[in-house]
């Protein structure tokens, strides 16, 4: 309740939270709300400009663009959520483990995440697509793996500070095993920062799904996806420029609202970060550390 009250104080964040919820609702009900069949090809009705029958026009194959944009919302949401689940399922246990055990485990894991974070997502994704093949599954594995280091870091950070708490010490004294301590005492601390991180990751995943699909390495036709629709629209840009409107706006709205909701969530759940937040937020997305953090790591203090 307290959370909702302080979240709703941010009017912009609240508005875009509703936009995001609306987009999720569209994604959930996509099969039932498309005005016509998004796969029905009719070359005679190709490249119609927007009209009452086809609000966003029809593409070069005569398919209704609005229906395809709606179905693409579902495809994208599915991929983004699955990638987040994948990254969380791999990254959080790993991060908790290395954070709790410390020592060599921690050093090795941090080195590897450091190196992984240097590379842009698209490059990691391309490597994985080569192996997994261009497909929805390929995108999910690629995105999930590429953002896994971020989740390792968050989980590790929380674990590092939580394991100093008195209740953990008490649990150790009482003879609890380390998996028990991780699950019973440290896990409850982690859910909030992970939710924030997941929300901040959502727009990144949506953008990269679209980018990979634009390049032909992601969602394969005829399944609609915004980036892939833009790629098809570019082929007929001179005769039907209106085809880029639908997918562009949908993509923009989704990414914008996810970004704003993520920022607001972070501010609401993590008031300590306020002010400093923006300065570091951007750098964090690049996986960078502040000079102070680097220096303190050198000295070995967390």
């Amino acid at each position, binding site marked *: 309740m307290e959370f909702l009250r302080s979240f709703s104080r941010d009017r912009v964040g609240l508005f875009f939270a509703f936009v995001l919820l609306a987009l999720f609702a569209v994604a959930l009900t996509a099969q039932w709300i498309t005005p016509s069949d998004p796969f029905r090809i009719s070359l005679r009705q190709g490249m119609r400009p927007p009209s009452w029958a086809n609000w966003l026009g029809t593409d070069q194959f005569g398919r209704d663009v609005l229906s395809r944009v709606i179905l693409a919302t579902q495809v994208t949401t599915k991929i983004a959520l699955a990638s987040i689940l994948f990254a969380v399922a791999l990254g959080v246990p790993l991060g908790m483990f290395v954070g709790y055990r410390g020592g060599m485990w921690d050093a090795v894991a941090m080195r590897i995440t450091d190196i992984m974070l240097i590379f842009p997502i698209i490059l990691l994704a391309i490597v994985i697509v080569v192996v997994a093949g261009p497909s929805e599954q390929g995108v999910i594995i690629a995105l999930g793996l590429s953002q896994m280091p971020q989740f390792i870091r968050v989980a590790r950070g929380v674990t590092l500070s939580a394991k100093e708490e008195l209740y953990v010490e008490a649990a150790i004294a009482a003879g609890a095993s380390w998996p028990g301590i991780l699950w019973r005492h440290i896990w409850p601390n982690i859910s909030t920062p992970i939710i924030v991180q997941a929300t901040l990751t959502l727009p990144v995943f949506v953008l990269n799904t679209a980018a990979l699909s634009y*390049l032909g390495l992601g969602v394969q036709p005829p399944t609609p996806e915004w980036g892939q629709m833009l790629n098809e629209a570019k082929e007929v840009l001179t005769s039907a420029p209106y085809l880029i409107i639908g997918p562009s706006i949908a993509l923009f709205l989704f990414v914008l609202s996810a970004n704003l909701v993520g920022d607001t969530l972070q501010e609401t759940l993590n008031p300590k970060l306020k002010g400093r937040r923006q300065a570091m937020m951007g750098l964090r997305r690049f996986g960078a550390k502040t000079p102070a953090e680097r220096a303190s790591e050198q000295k070995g203090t967390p």
Partner: protein
Amino acid sequence: MIIGRMGFIILAGFLLLSFLFALFHMIPGDPAVLLAGDNASKDVIESIRGAYGFDRPLYVQYGTYMSHVVLGDFGVSNYSRQPVLGIVLSRVLNTAQLATLAMIFAVVVSLTLGSLSATFWGSSLDKTVTVGSLVGICLPVFVTGIAGIYFFGVYLEWLPIAGMASWANYVLPVITLGTYQAAIFTRMVRSCMIDALGKEFVITARAKGVAEWRIVLTHALPNAFLPIITLFGLGFGHTLGGSVVIESIFNWPGLGRLMVESVLTRDLPIIQASIFFFAIIFITLNMLVDILYTWFDPRISY
């Protein structure tokens, strides 16, 4: 220190190539069949298998590949039969041009807008810049790029839209990529500058009666430089990542497009070499950032 770093780059490159070699040999499918084509006879496939050494044990293949790489021989392309190194190196230069120009554009724009925005914190100028950069972050390059192609290339017919024949070809790709990076950078430059302008030495300077523009340029900016350097260093890597998509949009004959094309045609020698060169560039950039760091802030040493 620099020699140690160079050693690290060589080690990282070696590990990366080994990793890629192992990864690409896990791909299901017979490489000899891939090379020979679907309709090839058994004899042809067998002779290719022998000629390429696919019948030898994996560690022999690995040893051969690595010893050739050391001598600068990355094999030949599966399709054009040209040596891979020549193809890749000619593309590296084109990508470097594109990314560097885009980066210069982004740095100039973001430093100007970010500093102005921070100086006039809360003004309508600040609000415009903040909203503008947020919108920029949410518009991926394939949306702005296609819109730019339509408006400036097709509708106004001012600029060429593909290739890199003359200086006019550079305008659209560089500005599209540069604007996206500038949007990311501006947000962070702004918050770093707001941070710096809130420091006590700024208050002292104001009390001394130093002109406001001088405070911004000579007091705040140099002090905001450390995080900004990290940002630009890592941002350069991400500009290179962004060039993968830009090159596909504008038919730019660079490394990124080469990589995407060879993924789609499964030309493994080219993929391996282009990922290798991309990765070496990223690692080198990261190293340069670290060195710049110690140069700008002598308190930090590695």
